[in-house]
């Protein structure tokens, strides 16, 4: 089930993002927040169209997934190429802190996000093509 797979990815990414920020206390940068805005709703939106299955859920979810994909692509390009330090050090809500980029993969999180959004878009588009309506 393509949409179910998409939901699994969205939920895993959401919990992963919350783990990074709430448990590991890594302050999310602005771009991460934009990606979260597009990722978190899918966790609730997709099940509504799954139980029972409603093919239109794909149309509702795709704009979110596409927008999230664009932001994550932008961030990955930023990290790989242009300005690796385009992150803000101290974010409200987290105890005053600074990101020390000593932990293995600062690069990993944007990349994970890009992979998640790419897969979700592929699944949603596949679901759309397969569904006759």
């Amino acid at each position, binding site marked *: 089930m393509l949409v*179910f797979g998409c939901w699994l990815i969205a939920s895993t990414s959401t919990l992963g993002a919350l783990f990074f920020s709430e448990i590991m206390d890594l302050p999310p940068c602005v771009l991460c927040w934009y990606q979260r805005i597009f990722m978190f709703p899918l966790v609730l939106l997709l099940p509504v169209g799954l*139980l029972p299955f409603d093919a239109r859920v794909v149309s509702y979810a795709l704009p979110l997934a596409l927008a999230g994909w664009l932001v994550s692509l932008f961030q990955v390009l930023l990290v790989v190429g242009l300005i690796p330090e385009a992150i803000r050090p101290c974010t409200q809500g987290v105890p005053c802190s600074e990101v020390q980029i*000593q932990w293995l993969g600062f690069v990993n999180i944007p990349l994970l996000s890009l992979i998640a959004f790419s897969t979700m878009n592929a699944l949603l588009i596949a679901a759309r093509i397969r569904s006759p309506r």
Partner: protein
Amino acid sequence: MSRKSKRNQPDPVSPPSQAQSAPAAKRWSRRNIFIASVAALLLAFVSATLLYRSEQARSSQFAAAKNLPALASERSPTFGPADAKVHLVEFFDPACETCAAFFPHVKKLLSANPDRIRLSVRHVPFHNGSDEVVRMLEAARNQDRYLPVLEALYASQNQWVRNHQVQADLAWMSLAGLGLDLDRLRREMNAPEVARRMAQDMSDARILGVTKTPEFFVNGRPLPRFGLEELQTLVQEELRRAYP
């Protein structure tokens, strides 16, 4: 599309009523799979959290135990009697809001146990531009004005820290009226000794894994979790142990 017109259309997805039982069962199992997935994901999240927390507590305990000499150098500003058996070490950034909020509570801990607690402070200017403010503090020590300067800086912090950016020229304004020789301060804040102390603080912070401020160690023990209550509990524990 209005709700009514949607109702009137035949719904291609839902089956006619006589064939209800088979799809209903399918829908039911689908729901079970969904609920099971939710449970599995949450379980994975909770266990990862617990695992990470215990791992982190162990490793920070270990780092502090192994690196006791890194905790406080004799050059760090220290308050309280030298023979106090409870030694509190605070790593802080003068531009950090949480540090400012903690400071009155730290002072209260000290004043409640004047003979039993010694406080050493270390500077970790993580905020951009905060190193200049630390230099002011270090230079103020030469005029025996460390605490008044720190308190004045904390009190006016929201004026010289804007959006987590330090505006050092505004910080200078809060030094007025403290009885400081400002020309001397300006001269001495660039002394090599000040730079040495600051480098020592930063390298000790790295050794101890201090990446956030404020960070506390009580007789070498880090807080199990960040929080004011955790700090107070840890101090009480060490007090009870040292002064039974």
